[in-house]
C-alpha cells in the first residue's frame, strides 16, 4: 500500500502556478529522492506534504488519509531543514526532546528517549551543549535526532546536506542511508545534487519547471532517461544530445554534415523517417579509431581521466577518455559508438522514442552504472 499518495497536486502563488499537477505514489518504507534544479518546485512539493504550504488543488494522502487540511503536527511527518533550524537557546537534549515535551511526555520518559536517540547518532557527549557550540555535521545530526525521536511514519529532508563541506556530505549521506535501513520509515529527500540522489534513492523523481519529468530507480533514470531534459541533467557530463535525421531503412541517424551513427534496429523498430535527437554517453564513446570524426576544442582534466570537448557534425559533444591523450585545439579525432549505446528522442518534445520491449533490448539497461562526483 502506498504510504504517500499525491494526486494532481498543484500550487499557485497568486496567478503564478509553480507546481503543475504532480502525481506520485510512494511505497511504505521507500526512500524517494526528488531531484531538480533550483526553482523547479521540489521544495514546495515537500513542504506541501509537510503541511507548511497550503495545497492549491489536488490531494495529498499519508497512510491512506487525506491530509490537505491537517496541521503539520497531525500529519505524522518529521522534517529536517537545510539550515537545521535548531532552537538556538536550547541545549542539544532540549532540542531533540522538544516535540516530546509538547506532546506532554514525562521528564523521565523524555530523558530516556533522548538518550537513546543521542546514542544512535553519537551525540551523547554533546547533550548539554548549545547549537552554537557544535560543528556543522553535529548540528545536522541534532536536526536528524529531532526528527527521529518522534518515530514518524514519514521523514522529509529538505536539502539537508547542502550546507556541509564535501567530505562531511559524503559521510552524512552514508549515515542517512544507514538510518533509513534501520528505521525503515518512508522518506522523501529533496536535493539538487544528482550524486546524492543516485547514491541514496530507491527511486528518483526528476522534476523540472514544476512538473515531474521521470520517476525511476537510479539506474533507470541514468540508463534510460525518458526525456532529453533528464538525459542532460543526470550524469556528469549529461548525455550527448545531437540533432539528426533518422533513416530507419538503413538503420542510421544522419547528422547535418553527412556522418552517420548506426543504431540498434531491434531496439528501435518503429522509428519514422525524419528529425530525431540522438543521444549517447560520453563514457560510451570509443576513442581512437572508427568511422566517425570530430574536431577537438579543449579538455577538462579529471585526474584519472579527461573530458574532451569537441564539435561533432557542427554540434557540441563531450568524450570521456581514460588514456592520456594530447590533442591540439582544432585537431580532428576519430571514434566510434556502439549502436546499442545510442538512445533516441523525439525532435519536438524531447520525449524518448518508443522501444521494443524485448529482453535483448533491455540487457543494456542493467549494465553497471558509473557515477562520478
Amino acid at each position, binding site marked *: 500500500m502506498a504510504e504517500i499518495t499525491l494526486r494532481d497536486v498543484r500550487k499557485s502563488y497568486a496567478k503564478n502556478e509553480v507546481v503543475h499537477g504532480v502525481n506520485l505514489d510512494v511505497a511504505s518504507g521507500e526512500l524517494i529522492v526528488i531531484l531538480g534544479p533550483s526553482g523547479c518546485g521540489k521544495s514546495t512539493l515537500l513542504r506541501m506534504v509537510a503541511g507548511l504550504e497550503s495545497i492549491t488543488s489536488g490531494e495529498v494522502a499519508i497512510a491512506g488519509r487525506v491530509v490537505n487540511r491537517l496541521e503539520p*503536527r497531525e500529519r505524522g*511527518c518529521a522534517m529536517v*531543514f537545510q539550515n537545521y*533550524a535548531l532552537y538556538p537557546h536550547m541545549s542539544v537534549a532540549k532540542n531533540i526532546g522538544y516535540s516530546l515535551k*509538547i506532546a506532554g511526555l514525562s521528564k523521565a520518559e523524555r530523558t530516556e528517549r533522548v538518550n537513546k536517540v543521542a546514542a544512535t547518532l553519537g551525540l551523547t557527549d554533546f547533550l548539554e551543549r548549545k547549537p552554537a557550540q557544535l560543528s556543522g555535521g553535529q548540528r545536522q545530526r541534532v536536526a536528524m535526532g*529531532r526528527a527521529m525521536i*518522534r518515530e514518524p511514519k514519514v521523514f522529509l529532508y529538505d536539502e539537508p546536506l547542502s550546507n556541509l563541506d564535501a567530505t562531511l556530505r559524503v559521510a552524512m549521506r552514508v549515515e542517512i542511508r544507514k538510518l533509513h535501513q534501520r528505521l525503515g520509515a518512508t522518506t522523501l529527500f529533496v536535493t539538487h545534487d544528482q550524486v546524492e540522489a543516485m547514491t541514496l534513492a530507491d527511486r528518483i523523481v526528476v522534476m523540472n519547471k514544476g512538473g515531474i519529468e521521470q520517476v525511476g530507480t537510479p539506474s533507470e533514470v541514468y540508463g534510460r532517461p525518458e526525456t532529453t531534459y533528464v538525459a542532460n541533467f543526470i550524469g556528469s557530463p549529461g548525455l550527448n544530445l545531437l540533432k539528426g535525421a533518422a533513416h530507419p531503412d538503413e538503420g542510421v541517424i544522419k547528422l547535418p554534415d553527412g556522418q552517420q551513427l548506426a543504431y540498434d534496429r531491434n531496439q528501435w523498430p518503429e522509428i519514422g523517417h525524419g528529425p530525431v535527437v540522438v543521444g549517447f554517453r560520453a563514457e560510451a564513446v570509443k576513442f581512437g579509431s572508427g568511422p566517425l570524426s570530430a574536431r577537438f576544442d579543449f579538455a577538462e582534466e579529471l585526474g584519472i581521466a579527461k573530458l574532451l570537448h569537441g564539435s561533432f557534425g557542427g554540434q557540441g559533444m563531450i568524450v570521456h577518455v581514460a588514456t592520456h591523450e594530447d590533442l591540439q585545439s582544432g585537431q580532428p579525432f576519430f571514434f566510434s559508438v556502439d549502436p546499442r549505446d545510442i538512445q533516441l528522442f523525439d525532435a519536438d518534445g524531447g520525449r524518448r522514442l518508443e522501444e521494443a520491449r524485448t529482453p535483448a533490448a533491455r540487457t543494456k539497461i542493467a549494465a553497471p552504472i558509473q557515477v562520478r562526483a
Partner: protein
Amino acid sequence: MIERTPVLDFITHALLIGSLVALLIPFWIIFVAASHDFHTVNQVPMPLMPGSHFLENMATAWERGNFGRVMLNSIVVAGGVTIGKIVIAALSAFSIVYFRYKLRMVMFWLIFITLMLPLEVRIVPTYAVAADALRPFKAIFELFGISVGLPEWNLLNSYSGLILPLIATATGTFLYRQFFLTVPDELTEAAKMDGSGPVRFFLEVLMPLSKTNMAALATIMFVWSWNQYLWPLLVVTDQQNFATATMQLQKIVPGPVFGEPPIWNVAMAANLIVLTPPVLVTIFLQRWFVRGLISTEK
C-alpha cells in the same frame, strides 16, 4: 583591519575623554553641592572639592522629601510601566509579524503613527479617560441612543492610573517587529513540525530568543517612565500616598520665595537620591542594551 594612525588615534581619544569629562562634570557638581553645609554651598564661587556634610544632607533630604514612600511609588510605577510596555510590545509585534489577517498593515501603521502622539499631545483626552475609564464606551452608547448604566471607574490617585495610560508603545512594538523579522522562518516551521502552537512558540522560542531585545527595551522604558513628570502631577492629587520621586523633587528644589536663600545642598542630595535607580538600571543592563540594539546575534 589593522591600521597605524597615531594622529587619528590621538584625536579620537581626546574627543572621547573630553566627552566623558563633559558628561561627568554635572554629576560631580551635584555631588560636591550635596556635601557642603548651607553656607558654603551658597558662596560665590562654589567650591569644587567635596565637603564633609554629605551624609547629613542626604538624611535631611530623605526625610524632608518623604522618599521612603515616594521612591517605592516610583519603583512600582516605573517597573509596572516597563513590564507592561514589554508585554504589549511583544504581543502586538507577534500578531503583526506572524499572523496573516485583514488590516494587518493598517494596524501596524496605526500603532506606528502613535509615535507622533506622545502623552503630552493627548493629555486632555487621556486625563478624561483616566477620570472615568468607561467614558469612551458611554460616549459610543450615547451616540446610538442606548442607555446603559455603566458604573464610574476612576483611575485617579491609583497605581493603575499612573501606569496604564503610559504603557502603549510604538517604539517597543517596532523594536520587537524588527527582531521577529530576523528570526528565520525555518525556526517557526521547525516548531510547527514539532507540534508547537502559536502561544507555546511565542513563550518558549521567541521570548527566550528576545532576551537582549527585552533588556534594551527595559532600559529605555524604565528611565523614560522614571522621568515622567507631567502625567503623575495631573493624575495624583493625594500626594501623601501616590507622589512619585520626580514630583517630590520639585518640592525640595528651592522655589522663588522672596527673602529665602535657596537650600541647594539638600536639593542636590535629593537629586542624587532620585537619579540613583535609573543610573543603576542603565549600568546593569547596558551590556545587554547595546547588544539588543545593534546585533542580531543568534
